[in-house]
């Protein structure tokens, strides 16, 4: 571990933590509603932000436009979190739902092209096509697939 560069260690932590959240989301919605799950997910975000506010320097004076965008990003991400909890609550498998919703950069790239006038790289062109095919395939449920009670919405 000591030979691992710091950035690789942090990137691995991000990968693993984000990956685990897909399962903890499912474990939550198996027991409580998506609304209650999202409410407490948001409380955790409040706790993290409170921790940051007291431990790291914060730019309290932002340009109004940037401030508005930062807050808007919270609104959009929070609503997305709510619908992702709802997807899991309504019977979606964590393995499928998380893989599917992870394709959201497809839309980000599309918005960036349309409104921010960015150009796609050839790799992103290929990625966009593969993302659409992947989304279609991920949405095809196996009729005979069975799962343990924990993988179902068990409320």
């Amino acid at each position, binding site marked *: 571990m000591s030979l691992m560069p710091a950035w690789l260690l942090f990137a691995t932590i991000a990968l693993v933590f984000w990956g685990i959240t897909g399962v903890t989301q499912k474990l939550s919605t198996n027991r409580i509603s998506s609304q*209650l799950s999202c409410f407490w997910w948001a409380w955790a975000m409040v706790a993290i932000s409170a921790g940051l506010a007291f431990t790291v320097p914060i730019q309290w004076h932002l340009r109004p436009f940037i401030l508005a965008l*930062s807050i808007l*990003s919270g609104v959009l991400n929070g609503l997305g979190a709510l*619908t992702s909890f709802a997807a899991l609550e309504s019977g979606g498998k*964590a393995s499928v739902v998380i893989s599917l919703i992870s394709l959201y950069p497809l839309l980000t790239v599309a918005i960036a092209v349309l409104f921010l006038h960015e150009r796609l790289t050839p790799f992103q062109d290929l990625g966009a096509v593969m993302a659409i095919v992947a989304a279609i395939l991920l949405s095809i449920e196996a009729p005979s697939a069975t799962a343990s009670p924990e993988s179902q919405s068990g409320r």
Partner: protein
Amino acid sequence: MLAGMPAWLAYSLVTILLWGAWGAVFKVASSGVDANTNQIFFTVGLLPLMLVLFPAARHGAVGPQRRAGIAWAFVTGILGGAGNIAFFRALGSGGKVSIVAPATALFPIVTVMLAVTFLRERISKQQIIGFALALVAIYLLSM
């Protein structure tokens, strides 16, 4: 939800729309603010949602299932937020965004491994191919 579409799929597609828009907004916002500050104002944006959800959060039977569900939801938020901080620390400690962003975007690998192992989920052959394609697509789109 949408006609003929399973609810989980419709909610997933709405999530892609919301997070896709979030990604674009975040992209612009992050040009004028550091990651820690953004996390704080991002949380301010969650407050209206929390107010809307508060009535629903008060209802429901009290018991060990509810407590466990709340604990898992809270853990989801802590791990998600800590993952965000780790992501920005990776960028701040020498990691190139062209490597860190696509590599960390592959987190569904971890979810699928855990879901198959611990939740005993089974997925169709088409979904397995879709998962593999999604990983490549996420990687390419993040480059």
